[in-house]
């Protein structure tokens, strides 16, 4: 049931094999063509003028000085938006370009196209905007609860309030309370927002773009351009990471507007600093929890208030709130639940999708609470979790029955039984502070912590979540060959290999080509919610089986496959695949079968902390994850390592610092992400308890490790320091100055 890491490379075809991805070597050697590498002769470069203020009226915009710059072809404002002026994933509340006011620092106001990127930027700086600065609304708790605060959005200051109400017993022998805070994490993808819009002869536009979901982009772009959807054609360009940050539009409409206006191809590439203003971030969270248990540590109730700051526009905040509410107690059996989850509008940077999507914030809080409860009950962190763990047949807080395997207690026991690492050597690279040599061992204490997370896989709450695949078998060079065409975005997760391997397995043909993703085939849905292996994998499988059925019928007369294809021509089938239906949460009680699949991951973290300086070295991370079915072991391990590293980043260093609505650290100099010296080796155990509802029994795998590694590391740091540490990321100040006090 489990595999160990470090296995030798498999060389076979089909699912279960570690096929190497075609983009891997290219990326490592710097030869991969990203969207920022797109080029056409005679193309123009776009630049965006953004608001320096988090909240202001715009009294006037004078584009005249920019238009006078030689080399400038167009300068556009909201008045030039050809169609609808607003777009958005859930509510169309975000202006394509600011109209009369700005609601966050970095909000786009005007666009420039010029024959050189530098010229475009210089010209944008010359646009004269007169602002009347307003006081920014920056405290999300005030925004949520104080009715005297002026509304930031046309929807008020509350995006969504989702209660969860179960049972009526809210007293217990053992009660622990805590307040927790999660800072604003960024997806920090390495390939900044970029793309190329090419005006077409039919009056439409061809857009080459790095995105997570081509069709939802198309749905939002076309009305703003006042074009029918078939005149806005999107092709996926090389994506340099996504993690949720490419769910919302960035420069798509802007580039298209400039291309249509100038009649020339227009390219945008955001710089690193602009990128921090060009996409949504993970919602920062303020959470108050109360856990009640009997003296044996069995949970009686959980009460929680969760406030998630969505910033200036809606983005995907409603769904993020839904996740935080429905998964707010974690994978534990809790007979009485009282949760209120809120999403707010403020003048802070807009927040939306990021790997883990609302479940991450709640996980940090409920796992911190489980450790407090363990201490109060005199139990080990593992034992308290085992005693309350869900299993198949358990109820979620929403009343939904977990109807597939969920062996959490076994996973915890397996994790606990893994051997612990020995003491670190005195090599500086193994000590807190690294080669910067802050200790030779002085002040260093070891801590161990555990974290458990549960994540919904695929879109929830009644969303019509499907994918489309077109599979074609034909002769190429006298050999049978498979073409797989979907609109699913390969964002670095390895979906190309999964599609290849499924086609190989179902058709028995090794030679598979993945056609570039574009909008000439039906929607694949988003590359998010850990859903593409499930949904697009399911679609490729269904289309492959349909092709296989026709081929079997054609070869029933004894002809060979090659003969059939030569005589009958290519065989092609297109299929849509949907997962089980989900249902909305009851707006008053939160009850409902809102999720289609649930995935578990558990982490153990071992850390060495220099308690005097507050510096931390994560010595080892061990994890047990149930993925139902392993499709590509190598790619899967990479996903677990990467998800774990992103959780480590949130625990220890990754935070967009915002003061008075302004971002203080929009650079990789001061927004730190883990290096290889920060991310330790991992011990992995990967389980395959199949979900009978999913293709091959698979369970989405990309997000769950991001949930559980953060609380495991935080718990280990608490164990090493004895400090409560109720906020992530944990800063050196939080430890060093507290120890001093």
């Amino acid at each position, binding site marked *: 049931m489990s595999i160990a890491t470090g296995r030798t490379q498999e060389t076979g075809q089909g699912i279960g094999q570690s096929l190497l991805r075609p983009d891997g070597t290219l990326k490592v050697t710097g030869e991969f063509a990203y969207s920022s590498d797109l080029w056409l002769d005679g193309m123009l470069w776009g630049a965006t003028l953004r608001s320096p203020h988090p909240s202001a009226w715009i009294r006037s915009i004078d584009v005249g000085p920019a238009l006078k710059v030689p080399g400038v072809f167009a300068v556009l404002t909201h008045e030039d938006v050809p169609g609808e002026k607003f777009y958005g994933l859930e509510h169309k509340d975000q202006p394509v370009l600011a109209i009369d006011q700005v609601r966050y620092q970095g909000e786009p106001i005007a666009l420039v196209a010029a024959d050189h990127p530098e010229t475009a*930027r210089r010209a944008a700086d010359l646009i004269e905007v007169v602002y009347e600065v307003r006081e920014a609304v920056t405290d999300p708790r005030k925004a949520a609860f104080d009715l005297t605060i002026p509304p930031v959005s046309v929807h008020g200051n509350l995006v969504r309030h989702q209660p969860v109400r179960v049972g009526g017993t809210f007293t217990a022998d053992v009660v622990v309370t805590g307040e927790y805070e999660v800072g604003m994490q960024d997806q920090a993808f390495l390939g900044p927002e970029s793309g190329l819009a090419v005006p077409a002869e039919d009056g439409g536009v061809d857009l080459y773009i790095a995105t997570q979901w081509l069709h939802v982009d198309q749905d939002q772009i076309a009305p703003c351009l006042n074009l029918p959807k078939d005149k806005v054609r999107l092709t996926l360009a090389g994506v340099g990471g996504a993690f949720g940050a490419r769910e919302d539009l960035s420069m798509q409409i802007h580039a298209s507007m400039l291309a249509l206006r100038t009649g020339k191809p227009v390219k945008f590439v955001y710089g690193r600093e602009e990128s921090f203003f060009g996409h949504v971030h993970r919602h920062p969270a303020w959470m108050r929890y109360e856990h009640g248990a009997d003296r044996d540590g069995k949970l009686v109730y959980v009460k929680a208030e969760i406030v998630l700051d969505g910033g200036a526009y809606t983005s995907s905040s409603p769904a993020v709130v839904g996740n935080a509410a429905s998964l707010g107690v974690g994978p534990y059996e809790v007979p009485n639940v009282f949760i209120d989850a809120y999403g707010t509008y403020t003048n802070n940077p807009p927040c939306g999708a990021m790997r883990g999507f609302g479940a991450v914030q709640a996980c940090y809080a409920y796992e911190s609470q489980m450790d407090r409860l363990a201490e109060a009950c005199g139990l080990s962190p593992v034992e308290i979790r085992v005693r309350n763990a869900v299993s198949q047949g358990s109820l979620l807080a929403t009343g939904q029955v977990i109807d597939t395997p969920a062996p959490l207690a076994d996973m915890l026991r397996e994790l606990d039984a893994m051997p612990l690492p020995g003491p670190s050597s005195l090599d500086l690279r193994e000590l807190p502070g690294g080669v*910067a*040599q802050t200790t030779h061992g002085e002040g260093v204490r070891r801590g161990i912590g555990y974290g458990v997370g549960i994540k919904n896989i695929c879109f929830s709450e009644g969303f019509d979540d499907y994918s489309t695949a077109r599979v074609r078998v034909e002769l190429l060079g006298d050999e049978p060959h498979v073409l797989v065409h979907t609109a699913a975005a390969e964002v670095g997760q390895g979906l190309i290999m999964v599609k290849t391997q499924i086609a190989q397995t179902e058709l028995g043909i090794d030679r598979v080509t993945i056609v570039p993703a574009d909008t000439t085939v039906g929607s694949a849905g988003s590359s998010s919610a850990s859903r593409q292996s499930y949904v697009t994998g399911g679609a490729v499988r269904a289309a492959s089986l349909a092709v296989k059925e026709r081929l079997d019928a054609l070869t029933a007369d004894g002809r060979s496959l090659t003969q059939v294809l030569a005589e009958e021509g290519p065989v092609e089938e297109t299929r849509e695949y949907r997962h089980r239906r989900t249902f909305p949460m009851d707006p008053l009680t939160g009850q409902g079968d809102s999720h289609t699949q649930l995935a578990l991951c558990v982490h153990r973290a071992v850390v060495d902390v220099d308690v005097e300086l*507050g510096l931390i070295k994560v010595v080892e991370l061990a994890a047990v994850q149930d993925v139902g079915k392993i499709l590509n072991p190598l790619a899967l391990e990479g996903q677990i390592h990467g998800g774990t590293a992103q959780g480590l980043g949130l625990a220890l260093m990754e935070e967009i610092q915002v003061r008075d609505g302004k971002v203080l650290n929009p650079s990789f100099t001061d927004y730190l992400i883990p*290096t290889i010296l920060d991310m330790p080796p991992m011990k992995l155990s990967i389980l395959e308890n199949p979900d009978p509802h999913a293709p091959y029994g698979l369970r989405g795998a990309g997000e769950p490790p991001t949930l559980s590694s953060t609380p495991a590391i935080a718990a280990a740091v608490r164990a090493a320091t004895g400090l409560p540490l109720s906020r992530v990321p944990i800063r050196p*100040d939080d430890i060093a*100055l507290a120890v001093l006090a």
Partner: protein
Amino acid sequence: MDFLRATTWAEALRMKADRPDATPVQGGTDVMVEINLDKGRPKALLDLTPVAELTEWSVESGNIRIGAGVTYTRIIAELADRLPGLAQASRTVGSPQIRNRGTVAGNLGAASPAGDSHPPLLASGAIVEAESVDGTRMIPVGDFYTGVKRHALASHELIRAIHVPVKRGPQYFSKIGTRNAMVIAVCSFGIALNAEDRTVGTGIGSAAPTPRRAVEAEAFLAGNWPAGDLDPAVAKRFGELVAAAAAPIDDVRGSSGYRVHALAVMARRTLGWAWQELRNGGRS
């Protein structure tokens, strides 16, 4: 922006005299980043990479004369035995790619209070060799830093080399960052013991408008030079005096309170390591 390229040192000096507004560029790890971020755009760049004589170091009367084009990677590989403090600091600079390009002279030219090479240069009493068509000036490094990102060079001068005394006792460098590699200093500290003179040199980084020495701490230790083992009370007091010499601010990288505290800890610890090495006859 004009791009000037000098192939000899004499040519570089002439170019700088003609164009005092030109910013010299060597590894480009600082200058090019600033330009790309649009933070100040020089009227001209003076590329010094073709000037071969800058890429050499030599021994001159007890000092290592490090040419302005010698990279951090070479300091780590070639000078760690004689300039351990500077080599340790070099090891913490950026990534391997940055260390392959960046230079100590560039660190001085940028004069950022967070530059990693400043504390060991201060601690060991380095001297900056500045040159122009008018001649050469030897500037003690303590006089070189005049403000945040400002230095004592005249507009027509270039850094020719840095003269760093060969170690006369144990040296250590220590730097706080919020991750374990590739990080700008929250604060840093360099110490150099002079076993013969029974004196100590210090350098504080990223905790004041300029890199600076902790003069009172130096005097205190010289006046209380331990006869045998290091008295923990002396080490503690030394740390406190180092911290007292700092004037840090709160910023995105850390609070002033943390910087003061961390300096005291680093000073105490590095003194402990240095003293231990001294007692062990030079072995760390």
